[in-house]
């Protein structure tokens, strides 16, 4: 077993070929990453909130990557599924007064069911039309939130309690979110190697061909939506208890588009994509949130023009990335890997 793979491919067994981290260097790198994440509260100090934020949205983005990256179904209503999870969690903990341990799986299950229903039309309509149908779903959910529970304001969510231990600090929430994040990511990554994942990719590449080869389209398209929604539901539940107040503005169309942006920036159809994308988008968002007032204060001439700086920078980065590196950050990562594989030779 090589430390880093030299030129040529020396895999001799199926197990080696299927291994996710196939050489020692990557295994060591992954362990280092995990160790870094575990030690993050000491490394980041008061900036830990950034990682909490990233964890929540990375979980949601992982779900969207199953729908869009692996099954190839466009969804512009991912934040609406997040809303379903968040409001389920609110209902279970605040109205039924059941503990959070019940609320988290309940959010996933309810979102799973709603996702399956929304996914049903994907059998009949595809591409552009499906994008528009999910867009309509997004608007209807926003409307329902405003009309029924939250109104124009927000709904308070009770604090989180994990089997008697109150999760009331950034650090405690971080370890909870990290566990869910890593668990969800490993599950999704493994899923892409199984029959389900392969079927989803077959559907993405050519759905009729997949059907001819015996892939049940109705089952797998619905499953993709349901699984994606379940991830969003978990993210919504975590978000609700982290933010402690939820309203229509947190699950707006802009949030759905942010999710799509995370996926595209990270790289579609890559298991690292949603995590890289979520980290990039959330860091950029928070950084611009901090930088915009500073900019306005130091260059008063710009005045209120800085309020929209996030939108402009964000859109410009998306456009630039799609033009110059359509594979996203994951492709850059792959290029780096390739460089390491071949080092010290250029090819």
């Amino acid at each position: 077993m090589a430390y880093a793979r030299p030129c040529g491919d020396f895999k001799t067994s199926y197990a080696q070929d299927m291994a996710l981290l196939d050489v020692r260097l990557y295994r060591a790198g992954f362990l280092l990453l995990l160790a870094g994440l575990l030690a993050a509260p000491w490394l980041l100090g008061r900036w830990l909130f950034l990682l909490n934020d990233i964890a929540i949205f990375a979980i949601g983005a992982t779900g969207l990557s199953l729908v869009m990256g692996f099954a190839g179904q466009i969804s512009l209503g991912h934040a609406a599924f997040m809303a379903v999870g968040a409001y389920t969690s609110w209902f279970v903990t605040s109205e039924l007064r059941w503990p959070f341990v019940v609320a988290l799986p309940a959010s996933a299950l309810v979102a799973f069911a709603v996702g399956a229903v929304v996914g049903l039309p994907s059998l009949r309509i595809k591409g552009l039309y499906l994008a528009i149908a999910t867009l309509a779903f997004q608007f209807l959910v926003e409307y329902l939130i405003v009309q029924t529970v939250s109104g124009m304001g927000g709904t308070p969510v009770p604090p989180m309690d994990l089997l008697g231990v109150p999760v009331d600090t950034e650090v405690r929430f971080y370890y909870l979110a990290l566990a869910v994040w890593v668990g969800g990511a490993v599950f999704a990554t493994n899923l892409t190697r199984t029959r389900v994942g392969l079927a989803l990719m077959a559907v993405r590449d050519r759905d009729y061909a997949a059907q001819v080869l015996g892939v049940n389209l109705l089952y797998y398209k619905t499953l993709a939506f349901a699984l994606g929604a379940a991830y969003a539901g978990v993210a919504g539940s975590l978000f609700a208890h982290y933010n402690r107040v939820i309203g229509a503005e947190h699950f707006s169309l802009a949030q759905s588009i942010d999710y799509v942006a995370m996926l595209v920036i990270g790289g579609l159809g890559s298991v690292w994509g949603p995590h890289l994308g979520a980290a990039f988008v959330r860091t950029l968002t928070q950084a611009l949130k901090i930088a915009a007032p500073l900019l306005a204060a130091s260059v008063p001439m710009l005045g209120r023009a800085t309020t929209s700086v996030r939108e402009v920078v964000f859109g410009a980065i998306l456009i630039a990335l799609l033009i110059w590196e359509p594979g996203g950050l994951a492709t850059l990562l792959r290029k780096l890997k390739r460089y390491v594989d071949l080092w010290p030779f250029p090819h």
Partner: protein
Amino acid sequence: MTPQFVLEGTVVGLAVGSIYALIAVGFAVLYKSTKILNLAHGELVLFGGYLAIALTTAAGHLPAPLAFGLGVAGTLVAAAALGFGVERAVMRPLFGQPLLSVIIVTLALGYVIRGVMVGIWSGETRTFPLVVPPVVVRVASVPVPLVGVWSAAAAAALLVLFSLFFRYTRWGVAMRAAANEQLTASALGVSLRRVFAYAWAFAAIAGAVGGILLGLWLGVNFALAAVGLKALAALILGGLDSIPGAIVGGLVVGVLETIVGGYIDAHVRLFGHPLHGFKEVTAYLVILLVLMVRPYGLFGTEHIERL
């Protein structure tokens, strides 16, 4: 639902619907000739509305009709330039990329345009300086503000003008040819690049005119971008690739929204709560229903797929 309510709803709905139709036609032309679904269309509508108001206000020292005329002319030129610019800078490098990338680029474009506009004009509602006297006229015994009649008339006139353009001018015919069969048209000497550029300019102009008309009637604020999505509903109803379909769809969505939405807004209660603002989501319900029953719309071509 009294007959009077239905009649009023129909007249007002047709007036609003004619503007939706105009915006939807811009959408349809762009989709037909470039196969791009432009999700930044709402921002183009906003752009038209805001710029026209800003220019008219800037020319405020001139007599009102002249200032308005100058404002509109300036806006149309700027919209055409924006369309050409977008095509050249953003869309041309993406030619041949997968559908998803293109949709996302239009979304990102919407972000940029909207962000720049928020930066310049901030978020509040703006209205035109008094151009049309605020009187109410009666159409078929229904009171309608004069502005509504004007904008409906302007939209109708433009729709006729557009159809003449596509029927008789050289570029209109080239655009229809490219829409029908890109490769054949290209082989027969139609410059696809130029057709794409014209399609974008056309879409931007149609959107901007829609924005000006809606701005005259209701004032412009950032909620107006949602109108772009309502035009999308109209387009889906009529069939994505059908221009007459876009017109019929626009009128139907306008009337449905006014009658059904208005009725539910005022009379239907859910768990004892009145449903405010149902009017705004009617269009999306229409989209969902149409997609379930007849995904290719009323007049669209039914797509047959082969392996």
